[in-house]
């Protein structure tokens, strides 16, 4: 037996993954256990969890693979500061403060942390994989392809910000790279900052805001900020950015170019200007990604594409690459961000370092991304009782029936089943679910349950066998990473009065007969649900379809704004009691809000720092 522990951390989204003899056993993000969103600290809880899932100790681990190379990152920092000196002194002193205290000695740090788990841990077991290689490995090795082009895009790792690799059998080689400070991810993050959202978590919001605006600034971005070459490679004009050596993403020249200062989220509302900015950067991102993938398809004539890196979570762009039809198959790592690097690093050791063969099947090896902890019915009941919850436990088919009935009555339901998802998306294991046909559900869910911005869209979980009847998509999208339009037959056209409305005022217009999951531009971020991957969730949607003829549900993550997705039954109960969720279904236990002890309610809205 060869056991490999993959670790990501000390940046953001720390995580641990366990691979035994090439099989992915478990993977989880530290934030789920520590309850700190994007927790960057050493993933103690996650490491302990993945080891316990396999019933082994750290002493049984043969290799520990870290997902990036600290010295190489430090080299980038030094060279960047030297190149810009004497500019950036403040940023330099802050960065060095962090690096010379801790990060430069990351191998020692990791060694010390691992010794807290196993006193005799051998430092020689520690291996380091390059950041983008970890991403590429996380995209290629679990994919169902024998051969693929592997494209990774993110903010920055060590030097690379974009890489192209070729995977064949167990071989994976990076053949092209774009280096810092030229980064599509950082360009998107710069606009995230400029529109008043948090860098590294607000990118989804910018993407969700884009359909409300017009891409009026697209040409300015293409003319002034980014020089896109014919093959899709690009360079950013550093005159407008401040991230290389400053403490903000953009500078004054950037603000002058667009005519406004960065939005201050605490005092300024989102205006049509910000929607147009969002639409413009989204359009530019799509253009670059489409151009890049078109060229890769032509250059290599390989029909399969794998994607990873934070930019691969831009499901609108992914949907357009799919629609372009240049690749027969596209597979995207569900934990495309840095958490997935833990898994990639572990798989890289198994296949690349140890040269073990790789066998592919028709499906990927991610097991639906259900790689986290699960709880037995007895554990669930014990936890709920300890929390003071009032529940009834019913047989599984009754639980499905009760849930589906409640959904038809427009109830909002906390759905907690099986193993927790790995990656940023809830995929029907830790989800809040509701009826997508409701006209008021999007607004209500956003404001009363999730405590988040009203414009943010919700995604449908749709039966795989019915997806093409409702959406312009006939492919697997199990990880909610492709956006496609609602079929014309289900759309509702806007009246002239509705068309005259502006920006967020359009929010209340029903665009289809599944309005809660149809964005303003008829698009939807789709999760296809397969019977073999998540049998219970499939059974629930099938039952709902039986009652309503509608083969889908709203699926949003089981948390509130700023809170990591719930991990344990206790987390789920607290979130249930702190929000307007009507019903909680954990395993076969069912809880109704009106039956609960009101004294257990807590002010959940202000519990977590807003993201």
């Amino acid at each position: 037996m060869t056991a490999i522990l993959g670790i990501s951390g000390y940046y953001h989204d720390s995580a641990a993954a366990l691979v035994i003899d090439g099989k992915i056993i478990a993977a989880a993000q530290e934030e789920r256990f520590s309850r700190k969103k994007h927790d960057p600290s050493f993933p103690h809880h996650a490491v302990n969890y993945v080891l316990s899932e396999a019933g082994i100790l750290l002493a049984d681990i043969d290799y520990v693979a870290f997902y990036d190379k600290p010295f190489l990152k430090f080299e980038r920092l030094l060279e960047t500061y030297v190149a810009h000196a004497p500019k950036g002194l403040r940023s330099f002193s802050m960065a060095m403060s962090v690096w010379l205290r801790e990060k430069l000695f990351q191998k020692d740090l990791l060694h010390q942390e691992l010794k807290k788990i196993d006193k005799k841990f051998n430092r020689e077991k520690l291996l380091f994989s390059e950041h983008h290689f970890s991403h590429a490995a996380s995209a290629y090795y679990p994919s169902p392809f024998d051969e693929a082009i592997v494209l990774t895009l993110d903010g920055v790792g060590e030097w690379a910000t974009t890489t192209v690799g070729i995977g064949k059998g167990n071989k994976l080689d990076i053949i092209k790279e774009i280096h810092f400070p030229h980064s599509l991810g950082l360009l998107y993050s710069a606009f995230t900052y400029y529109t008043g959202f948090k860098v590294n978590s607000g990118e989804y919001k910018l993407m969700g805001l884009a359909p409300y605006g017009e891409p009026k600034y697209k040409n300015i971005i293409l003319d002034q900020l980014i020089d896109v070459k014919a093959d899709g490679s690009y360079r950013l004009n550093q005159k407008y950015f401040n991230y290389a050596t400053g403490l903000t993403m953009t500078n004054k020249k950037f603000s002058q170019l667009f005519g406004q200062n960065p939005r201050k989220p605490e005092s300024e509302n989102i205006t049509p200007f910000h929607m147009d900015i969002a639409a413009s950067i989204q359009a530019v991102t799509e253009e670059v990604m489409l151009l890049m993938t078109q060229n890769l398809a032509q250059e290599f004539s390989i029909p399969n594409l794998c994607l990873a890196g934070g930019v691969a979570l831009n499901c609108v762009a992914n949907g357009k690459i799919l629609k372009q039809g240049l690749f027969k198959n596209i597979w995207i790592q569900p934990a495309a961000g840095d958490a997935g690097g833990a898994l990639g690093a572990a798989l890289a050791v198994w296949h690349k370092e140890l040269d073990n063969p790789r066998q592919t099947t028709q499906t990927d090896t991610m097991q639906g991304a259900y790689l986290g902890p699960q709880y037995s019915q007895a554990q669930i009941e014990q936890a709920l009782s300890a929390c003071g919850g009032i529940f009834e436990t019913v047989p599984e088919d009754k639980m499905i029936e009760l849930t589906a009935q409640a959904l038809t009555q427009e109830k909002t339901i906390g759905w907690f089943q099986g193993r927790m998802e790995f990656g940023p998306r809830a995929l029907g294991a830790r989800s809040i679910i509701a009826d997508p046909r409701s006209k008021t559900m999007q607004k209500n869910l956003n404001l009363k349950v999730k405590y988040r911005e009203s414009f943010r869209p919700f995604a449908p979980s749709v039966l795989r066998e019915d997806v093409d009847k409702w959406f312009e998509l006939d492919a697997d999208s199990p990880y909610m990473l492709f956006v496609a339009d609602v079929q014309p037959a289900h759309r509702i056209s806007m009246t002239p009065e509705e068309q005259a409305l502006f920006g967020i005022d359009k929010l209340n217009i029903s665009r289809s007969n599944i309005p809660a999951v149809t964005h303003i531009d008829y698009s939807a971020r789709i999760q296809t649900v397969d019977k073999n991957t998540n049998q219970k969730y499939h059974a629930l949607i099938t039952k709902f379809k039986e009652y309503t003829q509608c083969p889908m549900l709203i699926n949003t993550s089981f948390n509130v704004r700023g809170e990591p997705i719930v991990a344990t039954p206790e987390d789920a109960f607290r979130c249930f009691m702190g929000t307007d969720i009507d019903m909680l279904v954990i395993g076969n236990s069912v809880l109704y809000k009106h039956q609960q002890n009101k004294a257990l309610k807590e002010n959940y809205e202000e519990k977590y720092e807003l993201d």
Partner: protein
Amino acid sequence: MSFLKELFTFVKARKKYWLLPVLIVMLLLGSLLVFSQGTAVAPLIYTIF
């Protein structure tokens, strides 16, 4: 010591010998800078971590 050895191996592998004097000065000045300050608080920017 293992840290210094690994750092030197890295510089050698990357053939970036010009970084060595920078690193030495940095480590000396940096130690002053670091130990004259309070806790190391990571600034909230994306690129330097």
